[in-house]
């Protein structure tokens, strides 16, 4: 590695240490981790089940570590359906050879159609079977996004494919590989990048009972809400586009444990609440689960208005 590379490398390590909340003393260890990764000692395999690729797209929006740096410095991405040059049989061979080798970090995007295996195929093989093979040989499994973590939209009530989350599916198949859940619809790129590097170098990050890294998922949206004072003063928005707490429009902030309000999206330029939209709880374990539980509503505000009159 030449001098320029080394310098920018250390700069990245510093940035990543900050991102991970590890402090300056961890910089050399992070640098070492990245060095190892760049030599391909810890390959990453990315598989897609019933997904929309939104988590992959969101990952490409990463700023703390740009996607190009991520691919060439941080991880060795053996296969990704949306990015890999290999196509057709060649793609199948690539995945199979990586799986046979084992010892990779497996990132899974999307749910598993447990009752309808034909509803997601990779070449000639049902995704469910591919996942069983790949999970068994993984060093660690990281579920990226709400579909993969909890089932999400594909597993919503009345879904026809019997979709389940990756942890639920693997448990059903008796596969016991540690799973870290990084939910979100989509994932925030910081959550995924930070978790991957932590897992590779420092082992499993501190997680809660659902396997979510505490660094990102330990406080509710409500606690960190820019409109928290409106809630305290009982100043509620009665319809969209108004100032005030969005609780009566169905905001799921109090039951959603993500740090969107502090972190901000797309380089921190905005967030759902800052854009005047109630939190729909897309990072929560029950996102879209029940048909009778609306994501946003005008009814609650309308009832209040009626009561006030």
């Amino acid at each position: 590695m030449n001098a320029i590379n080394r310098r920018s490398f250390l700069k990245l390590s510093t940035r990543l240490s900050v991102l991970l909340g590890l402090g300056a003393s961890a910089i050399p260890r992070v640098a070492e981790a990245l060095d190892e990764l760049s030599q391909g000692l810890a390959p990453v395999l990315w598989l897609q089940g019933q997904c929309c690729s939104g988590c992959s797209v969101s990952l490409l929006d990463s700023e703390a570590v740009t996607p190009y740096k991520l691919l060439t410095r941080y991880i060795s991405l053996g296969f990704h359906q949306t990015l890999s040059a290999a196509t057709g049989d060649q793609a199948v061979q690539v995945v199979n050879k990586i799986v046979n080798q084992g010892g990779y970090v497996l990132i899974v995007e999307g749910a598993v159609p447990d009752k309808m295996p034909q509803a997601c195929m990779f070449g000639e093989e049902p995704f469910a079977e591919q996942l069983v093979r790949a999970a068994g040989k993984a060093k660690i499994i990281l579920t990226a996004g709400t579909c993969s973590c909890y089932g999400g939209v594909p597993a919503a009530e009345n879904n026809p494919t019997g979709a389940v989350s990756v942890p639920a599916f693997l448990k059903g198949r008796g596969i016991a590989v540690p799973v870290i859940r990084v939910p979100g619809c989509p994932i925030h790129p910081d959550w995924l990048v930070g978790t991957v590097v932590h897992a590779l170098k420092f082992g499993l990050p501190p997680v809660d009972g659902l396997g979510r890294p505490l660094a990102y998922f330990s406080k509710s949206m409500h606690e960190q809400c820019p409109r928290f004072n409106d809630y305290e003063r009982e100043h509620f928005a009665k319809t969209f586009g108004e100032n005030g707490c969005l609780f009566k429009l169905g905001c799921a902030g109090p039951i959603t444990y993500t740090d969107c309000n502090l972190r901000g999206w797309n380089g921190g330029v905005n967030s759902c609440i800052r854009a005047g939209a109630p939190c729909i709880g897309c990072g929560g374990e029950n996102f879209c689960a029940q048909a009778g539980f609306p994501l946003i509503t005008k009814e609650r505000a309308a009832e209040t208005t009626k009561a006030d009159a």
Partner: protein
Amino acid sequence: MNKTIKLSPVTRIEGHLGIKVEVEDGRVARAYVSGEMFRGFETLLRGRDPLDAQYITQRICGVCPIDHGMASVLAQDMAYQLTPPDNGRIIRNLTQAANFIASHITHFYLLSALDFVDVAMITEYQGKDRALLDLQAWVKAQLSSRQVYPAAPFLPRYATKYLADKDANFGALKHYMDALEIRSQAHKMGALFAGKMPHAASLVPGGVTAKATSLNISQYRTLLEPIQDFINQSYLPDVLAVAGAFPEYFSLAQGCGNFLTYGVFPESADGAAKFLPGGARVKGKWQKLDPEAVTEDVGQSRFSSASGRKPFDGETVAAPDKSGAYSWLKAPRYQGEPMEVGPLARVLAAYQDGGNAEMKGAVDQLLKTLGRDATALASVMGRHAARALECKLLADRCAVWLDQLTPEAPAFKDFSIPESGRGYGLTEAARGALGHWLDIKNKKIANYQCVVPTTWNCSPRDDHGVAGPVEQALVGVAIADAENPIEAARVVRSFDPCLACAVH
């Protein structure tokens, strides 16, 4: 060579796609396109609150979520008889345009470029560009490492003839790296009004929850200018360079010859005037758009529901083991015909409409540069060129829309959900015509049907055995090497397929 070649999965598209081509005497005689992933959005939406729709349908696709959100709020606007305030309409346009721009740039560089550009040539680079030297160091280190697949995900790839011109190649490689950042800047631009991208928070019936402020208007403009520069100085020249090096792709994959666009980016309060107009070319003749002409067949699709229905009465009942069915996609038809949708359809519609002088001038200029007439546009290269051209004109238009915003003005018109009602939302995704049809009963969704761009393009055969547009485009394509069927991959990718969308 007589042989059946399977490309499954086709990577560097969105989602799970399989292609089967039957090659006779070295050319594709028949092609079969299969969508391989199904979630059942239309089924799980039934019985839900209509306001769930613009959020849930965005999750159909992470590449074009805003377009699904738009189709959904347009359908609800119609059902609730709403007209958004000007700011609401313009903010929606700016959000959707940001998604288009990100998608087009992603498509050319991240999804298509590796079919033409030679990554391995970077080892021969002798210049001083830091980013390229960086890439060179990485590729060299990878090639001498003990990686199972060095330089993944860029290698391995099909063995074929790639771009030979070194400068054009190095330029495109550098722009590939730039594109990664530019596309995320486009998303950031959209997030200024959407809250976040992908999967926007602020789209609601009646407009948007976000407000235009002098700050976010200027932020959008600040982000837009480097994107415009990238389109003009990198994207368009790279497309022309690739087009120059692979001229045979101007006469390849003409497709079905029918084109459909619903039109997009409303520029009047009633939505009638659009920046890109709607229209349909059926059997060689352009005609006015008729939403009633859309039906969906399922004869060869994995559904047991009724075939040939109009979307308002459409059904989606999965039948994974249905005999003779080979795709999870339905087969949408317009007046019974398969239709190509996408940037090419939009550019051709605007060109023949003539109302958009800039578009007319830009297409004429492009054809002059290429030394070809308009018929050459229905081709692999024509689709790439139309996409790049649209990207440029759209980015330029965003600057005009920003000037039309009034800071702090209302962007939302209040509504209440009726006991019953119907509406459809016709718009465009980056990759083509997108429609949502909504039927409300007892304030809940009674039926919801999506007819999606890639459902049109990657449609399987219909009940009459007529092949879909991509299936038709593949016929006649010469495959030089059955082990490396790059020609078929190039044809398929020129349509920018999005399979999560297509099946939903």
